[in-house]
């Protein structure tokens, strides 16, 4: 077993938060006694603690976690920007952080001059730098424009040149932080492919930090999940990503639920008074008491899976009998476009008249909505709604029920669309 490329032994970082940055400077210069004398108070915060892991040479490891989970702090300690408060970080080899592209770039320089400037910030000068130039120009596909000032470049061209220059030399340990998220999706994908090619070929140790699970999946075999400043899970990418996705889904559910609860908590006019609240109105002859989304795991889900069964359960209460109510569940995209509308008249399901408590269930055997966020309206109308005209409503809860559709395997790198059209494919020769 060779020495690992990277080792963290029980690393922790404590920040002392002062009310003013100047006090922090005094503290760092050894004036802690002065601050205590002045009565300045500081709060202590462990941004990361008890972090231990080792990365073998040639391993590609993803570091995931939410914003503020301690990813960046850990990373900064690895690259040496921050000194750990406790513990020890060991790095074997030349470490390079790819945190932003275009270091040393200047708009007035030509592409070629900028390549040289960027390389000089990586410690490559003279003959070495000139030797690398053709390869960089080649990958950037900018040979035609390379002697023009970069201020004449489009944003995409600029990013291409900057990325090519930044990845010209692959160090022993490469730390990549989110940069691939910048720029358009096409370019991000291309960069990701290049990163994988380069690192696979050279056997570079990679630490890739992202909250984009799918990007981690492309690049890394192993994944470390940082949560609340410590390592929550460390293992094969797929299994860690799965638990991470589950956790994120659970928290997202809580968020959506809190949002709907806030909306429901707003004062609502008493039924019967025909209130014209913009999002919650109706004659009050019957009222929607609750809306629930049910899937295989949960009877009150906020996130359902595409291609899986689910059902919408609406509790309706009519104080006195009403005839032929029409029940509607209508899901909108964030853009406001109606994605699907489930409409059914009472008599179609054998209930031409309802009174008292009723439960209306829309049963979906297989959800064809694609992954994304949706907001739904739930309503009971007096007649079937026609295009362009809304009939008199018993009760409408307009766009107040939030839910989300996700892919079972977590975010996919392939766009599947808003509608999951069932299909099969055939290939015929000739």
């Amino acid at each position, binding site marked *: 077993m*060779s020495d690992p490329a990277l080792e963290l032994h029980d690393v922790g970082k404590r920040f002392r938060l002062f009310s003013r*940055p100047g006090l922090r400077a005094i503290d760092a210069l050894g004036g802690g006694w002065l601050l205590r004398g002045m009565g300045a108070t500081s709060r202590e915060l462990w941004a990361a603690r008890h972090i231990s892991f080792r990365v073998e040479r040639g391993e590609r490891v993803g570091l995931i976690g939410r914003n503020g989970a301690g990813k960046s702090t850990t990373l900064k300690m690895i690259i*040496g920007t921050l000194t750990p408060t406790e513990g020890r970080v060991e790095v*074997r080899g*030349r470490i390079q*952080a790819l*945190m932003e592209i275009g270091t040393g770039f200047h708009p007035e320089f030509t592409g070629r001059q900028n390549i040289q400037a960027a390389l000089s*910030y990586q410690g490559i000068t003279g003959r070495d730098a000139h030797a690398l130039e053709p390869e960089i120009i080649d990958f950037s596909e900018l040979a035609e424009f390379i002697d023009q000032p970069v201020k004449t470049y489009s944003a995409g061209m600029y990013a291409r040149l900057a990325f090519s220059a930044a990845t010209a030399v692959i160090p022993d340990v490469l730390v990549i932080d989110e940069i691939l998220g910048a720029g358009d999706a096409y370019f991000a994908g291309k960069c990701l492919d290049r990163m994988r090619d380069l690192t696979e070929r050279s056997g570079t140790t990679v630490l890739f930090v992202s909250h984009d699970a799918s990007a981690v999946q492309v690049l890394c075999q192993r994944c470390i999940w940082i949560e609340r400043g410590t390592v929550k899970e460390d293992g094969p990418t797929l299994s860690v990503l799965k638990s991470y996705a589950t956790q994120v889904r659970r928290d997202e559910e809580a968020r959506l639920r809190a949002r709907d609860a806030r909306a429901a908590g707003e004062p609502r006019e008493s039924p019967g008074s025909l209130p014209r609240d913009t999002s919650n109105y109706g004659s009050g002859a019957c009222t929607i008491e609750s809306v629930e989304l049910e899937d295989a795991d949960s009877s009150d889900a906020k996130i359902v899976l595409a291609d899986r069964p689910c059902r919408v359960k609406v509790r309706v209460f009519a104080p006195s009998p009403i005839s032929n109510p029409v029940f509607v569940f209508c899901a909108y995209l964030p853009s406001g476009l109606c994605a699907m509308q489930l409409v059914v008249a009472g008599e179609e399901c054998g209930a031409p008249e309802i009174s008292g408590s009723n439960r209306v269930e829309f049963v979906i055997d297989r959800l064809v909505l694609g992954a994304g966020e949706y907001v739904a309206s739930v309503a009971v109308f007096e007649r079937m709604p026609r295009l362009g005209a809304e009939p008199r409503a018993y009760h409408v809860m307009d766009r107040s029920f939030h839910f989300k559709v996700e892919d079972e395997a977590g975010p996919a790198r392939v766009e599947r669309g808003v509608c999951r059209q069932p299909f099969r494919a055939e290939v015929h020769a000739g």
Partner: protein
Amino acid sequence: MDPVRSAGASADGRRLPLKTMAAAPSGIRGWHSIFFEPFAVLLRHRRMLFRTSLADVRARIAASALGWIWIGLYPLLFLGAYALVYLYVFQVRFPAYGGRDYVVLIFCGLVPFLWFSESLAVGTGSVVANGNLIKNTLFPIELVPAKSVLAAQATFAVGIVMVVGALAATGKLSAWVTLLPLLWFFQFLLTVGVVWATSSLCVFVRDLQQIIGVCLLLLMMVSPIAFPAEAVPENLRGWMGLNPLYYLITCYQDVLINGRQPANLLPLGIISFAAFFVGHAIFSRLKGVFADYV
């Protein structure tokens, strides 16, 4: 948090440097690091420092219409203003210097002062402006202020060539001019030290940039640029010593126009080294907390 460099043998026989970052015992640090580190960091990365400084100068030139001409024009404009005010408005005359010599005298002080002031003006904000480089593992952040100092000497280089040329033309050049590289070295240490201190403090106290501007203006007036130090009244001469530029500028004047042994060389050397070490100590202490403020 000095990176301890040892070696770890790897599987394929390649020896990779091992870098350890551990919780540093706060308080006393090794004496060698105070005196050795500031030189080591600059020397270790000298090529990178040189290339990036050059790129800085080029960037500034590329951004202006007159380009390279500015580098020569800038000191000449300053000199012109000085000469106009002192020679023709105030009608200042010193017995030791004729009209033409007086202009050269001004230049001897002005050229190093411009290097110092430009370094400070640009360098103080350099860490804040180059916050992105803090995360660059290959380009130590210490180099950023040093880079500003090096890039700022373009004017100085052109100006010194002008002065030496003018002295040679009037036949006033002496052998003492060979001390110029030493003066350059002292001024470099002094300026880098001061800029290390100001640039790191500026991260926490941004007003420093304005304060420095005012200080530079004051320094310009009290420094013996347009007058020889001997012209200062006896009772005020002691105060001159409080200005570190006094030693620097009188040394340049002695070596260049006066053609004599620079009397203030020793204090200048002491001040320069002290500023260099103290500046680095401040910078390396504050560097650990930069990342959160830039």
